[in-house]
């Protein structure tokens, strides 16, 4: 019999388990991975360079398109970096709204991850279940910002507008009969907060459903336990963050350790793994969804009690209201200047990081005093995670590559930027 030689295999970029446009060049001996060389950059859009060519506020929309499954968290880091440089104070209500939508975003992201990860390693039902819940959260996005995904809702100094008092309802059409329409609209009778509140009551039960399907499932455990093990020391050495770091047992969460906005006033727990394998990271993320649900509940309770402004009154940075513009010359000038030239940010540099669903998402802005950033650097958590791909899959079987891609929660919008 001929001796088996190691050979090179190409994986992706057109592959359903590649989560976008990952191209992996795998060196394989038999079915065992010797080395994996990820080729990234197929989705490189030079976001950072584009941002350098336009006023600060015009790049908020680009941030949504970085990690396109956790849109508002990206915006959050960007506006925080600008606020840091400008020294703008954000109204408390805006901070609560941001925290609430950050956590909605975290659930959105983790649902997408769980569905795709499940589908990749053979749990088809997960995908359908997860997308069912995602739909409600997308509707919350739509109600508050007008779009289901790329919200462009946060602004330096607060958020674009207050939460709406009514939820948009489904319209009658020839595809829906009256009963179905009433059923779909029954949860949309109240305000957005009522809608999210109802979701929060329902959601822990949904997470229980996911867990019945997976947590003790023999096949799921065979595919994830002891796969892609990362020790705490290696995780730190490789620049891991978020669930990838916590899965390895390092207790580190920016929401607790370096709290921003109102996270220091909110009660929640940080789940930490033990073994640092795919299964522990699965458990960490599932528990994070439950904790996010808790945070949203607390935000809703606060937001119901405390009406107030949602954006700073500093009209050098935030636009004045339409009403003010009608009879105040200075407001009109502010509005004109803001929407043509933008605002100048004082010379200096700032790094703002948020606990993004995937890890530490940081924005480094270097300003020379102009109305555009001189240099914008996006620190994407997925970039650091993917760079450890080779180390994580070495010695595993070919099929485990898919499990590791899934557990890293790779999204190419942020890796390639």
């Amino acid at each position: 019999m001929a001796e088996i030689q190691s050979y090179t295999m190409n994986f992706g970029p057109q592959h359903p388990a590649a989560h976008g446009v990952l191209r992996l060049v795998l060196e394989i001996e038999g079915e065992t991975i010797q080395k994996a060389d990820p080729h990234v950059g197929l989705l490189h859009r030079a976001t950072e360079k584009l941002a350098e060519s336009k006023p600060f506020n015009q790049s908020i929309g680009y941030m949504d398109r970085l990690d396109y499954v956790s849109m508002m968290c990206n915006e959050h880091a960007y506006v925080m970096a600008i606020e840091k440089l400008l020294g703008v104070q954000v109204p408390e209500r805006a901070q609560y709204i941001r925290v609430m939508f950050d956590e909605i975003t975290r659930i959105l992201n983790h649902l997408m991850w769980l569905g795709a990860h499940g589908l990749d390693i053979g749990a088809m039902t997960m995908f359908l279940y997860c997308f069912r819940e995602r739909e409600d959260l997308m509707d919350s996005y739509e109600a508050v910002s007008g779009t289901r995904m790329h919200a462009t809702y946060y602004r330096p100094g607060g958020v674009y507008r207050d939460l709406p008092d009514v939820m948009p309802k489904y319209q009658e059409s020839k595809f829906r009969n009256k009963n179905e329409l009433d059923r779909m609209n029954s949860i949309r009778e109240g305000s957005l907060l009522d809608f999210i509140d109802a979701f929060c009551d329902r959601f822990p039960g949904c997470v229980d459903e996911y867990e019945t399907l997976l947590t003790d499932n023999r096949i799921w455990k065979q595919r994830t336990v002891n796969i892609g093990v990362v020790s705490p020391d290696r995780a730190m050495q490789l620049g891991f963050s978020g669930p990838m770091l916590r899965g390895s047992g390092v207790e580190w969460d920016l929401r607790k350790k370096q709290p921003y906005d109102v996270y220091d006033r909110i009660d929640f727990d940080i789940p930490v793994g033990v073994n640092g394998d795919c299964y522990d990271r699965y458990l960490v993320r599932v528990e994070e969804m439950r904790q996010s649900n808790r945070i949203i509940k607390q935000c809703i309770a606060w937001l119901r009690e405390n009406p107030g402004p949602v954006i700073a009154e500093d009209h050098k940075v935030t636009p004045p209201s339409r009403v003010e513009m009608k009879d105040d010359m200075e407001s009109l000038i502010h509005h004109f200047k803001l929407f043509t030239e933008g605002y100048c940010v004082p010379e200096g540099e700032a790094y703002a990081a948020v606990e993004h669903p995937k890890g530490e998402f940081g924005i480094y802005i270097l300003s020379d005093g102009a109305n555009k950033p001189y240099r914008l650097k996006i620190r994407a958590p997925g970039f650091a995670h993917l760079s450890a791909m080779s180390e994580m899959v070495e010695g595993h079987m070919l099929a485990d590559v898919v499990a590791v891609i899934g557990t890293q929660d790779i999204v190419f919008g942020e890796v390639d930027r």
Partner: protein
Amino acid sequence: MSERYDTLAAQLHERFGEQIRRVPSTCGELTYELDKDDLIEVATALRNEGAFGFEMLMDVCGVDYLNYGSDEWTTNTATDTGFSRGVERQPVILDEADEFEPNRFAVVYHLLSLQHNFRMRLRVFTGTSNPPIIKSVVDIWNGANWFEREAFDLFGILFDGHPDLRRILTDYGFIGHPFRKDFPLMGNVEVSYDADEGRVVYKPVSIEPRTLVPRVIRDDNRYEADLKDVTDG
């Protein structure tokens, strides 16, 4: 928070003395500049010594300071001469120069200490050499590997001692370093499918560069440090 950072700053000054120079910050962040020859020594100490314990390197970021502080539209004398709609472009400086301005390229490192919950930033200028070159920190923080590849790809900064310095984000066979300030935003080439030749061909770009909003720098005395102190006091 700031008290802890003052202590850290004092410790850093005591340990490294003149090797690192603090850069003033308006938002309470610690930034230090250092010579590129000292980088490895300082970085190793920052990682390994218990008082600092910066076990994580969060980010490595290349910066090109070519047009720093220059605007496209004069704002102070504009009313004397009338507003010009046309924006004057910065002249392109070719890369063939043997030497760069010493402060043209910099590499910025963002460090994080989990045990002490500190962040700090190091900035190292690459000096006059063309291509710019600096020591790699991959052996100190393994996570630097791809971040340095990215800085090499986008800025053409070489990292001495990097195990695998290849392009990472741009296309296979890409020419130039796109994030340099003298690289045009729309690039130099465009690709299209040529039906006659039956393959994808590269041609010089056909679109005109345009600026929708000129870059302006306005003197804003709200942000001047001495004025700020008066209002705060």
